[in-house]
């Protein structure tokens, strides 16, 4: 008995349900928690595809670092259900309708695509392992890797400059 399809469907339903709850929940803190749940489901998909490095990085960077940052900002601003801004009902309906149309068009365009008979390799293959990816990252992709460190430095400086309080000049 092959359990892979069951795991796939379970993870897919989990990811879609969590994403829907993230979009629809009123309280921003619940939204963050549902998004973390979505990220765990996507990490499960990565493990199913044997992309172990990306699964671990996804949990550490997204669920660990980025979402904690979001949570900090939300709690710093003291946002909750009462202060949550609301759009009017028609705008929400039109937004959902537009998204549904986008999904319909994309699915209709891609359902007869040429790659329909292709399979994704599941549970095998060594390209997702840290050894292979690390070797590739530090040989062929070493220049983009170094440039990304510069990007991080500029993002850090930018966040500090934007986030700091403006000093008021009283005697100028």
């Amino acid at each position, binding site marked *: 008995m092959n359990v892979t399809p069951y795991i796939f469907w379970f993870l897919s339903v989990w990811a879609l349900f969590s994403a829907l709850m993230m979009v629809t929940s009123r309280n921003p803190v619940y939204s963050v928690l549902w998004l973390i749940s979505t990220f765990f489901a996507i990490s499960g998909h990565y493990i199913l595809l044997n992309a172990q490095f990306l699964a671990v990085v996804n949990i550490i*960077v997204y669920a660990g670092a980025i979402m904690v940052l979001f949570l900090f900002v939300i709690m710093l601003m003291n*946002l909750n259900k009462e202060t949550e801004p609301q759009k009017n009902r028609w705008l929400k309906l039109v937004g959902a309708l537009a998204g549904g149309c*986008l999904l319909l068009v994309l699915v209709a365009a891609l359902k007869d695509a040429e790659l329909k008979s292709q399979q994704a390799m599941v549970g095998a293959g060594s390209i997702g392992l840290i050894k292979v990816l690390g070797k590739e990252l530090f040989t062929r992709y070493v220049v983009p890797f170094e440039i990304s460190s510069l990007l991080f430095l500029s993002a850090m400086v930018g966040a500090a400059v934007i986030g700091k309080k403006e000093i008021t000049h009283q005697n100028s």
Partner: protein
Amino acid sequence: MPINYYLFLSLALFTIGMVGVLTRRNAIIIFMCIELMLNAVNLLLVAFSKMHHLKNLALNASVGTDGQLFVFFIMVVAAAEVSVGLAIIVMMYRNIHSVDIQFLNRLKH
């Protein structure tokens, strides 16, 4: 698994993120929906890399690592983007005491 399933799952996740951007007014939630869209793309990139690997396995044993490294770089860029974006949102909250994007439709006060 057939690649179609991954394609449609990613499309559904992307569309949910898009609907979130269109229907919510809280700037932080809109930002989170953008993260969800990035993740949908990441999932599809990994699935395609595994598809490519299976197809060209005989030619080269390490074919398909490029796609997974792209996902890695997308995560790097997303982390940098989040730090700057949240700083901008904090600054906006400090100035107008709200994260409602409706107050930003005019750029001057």
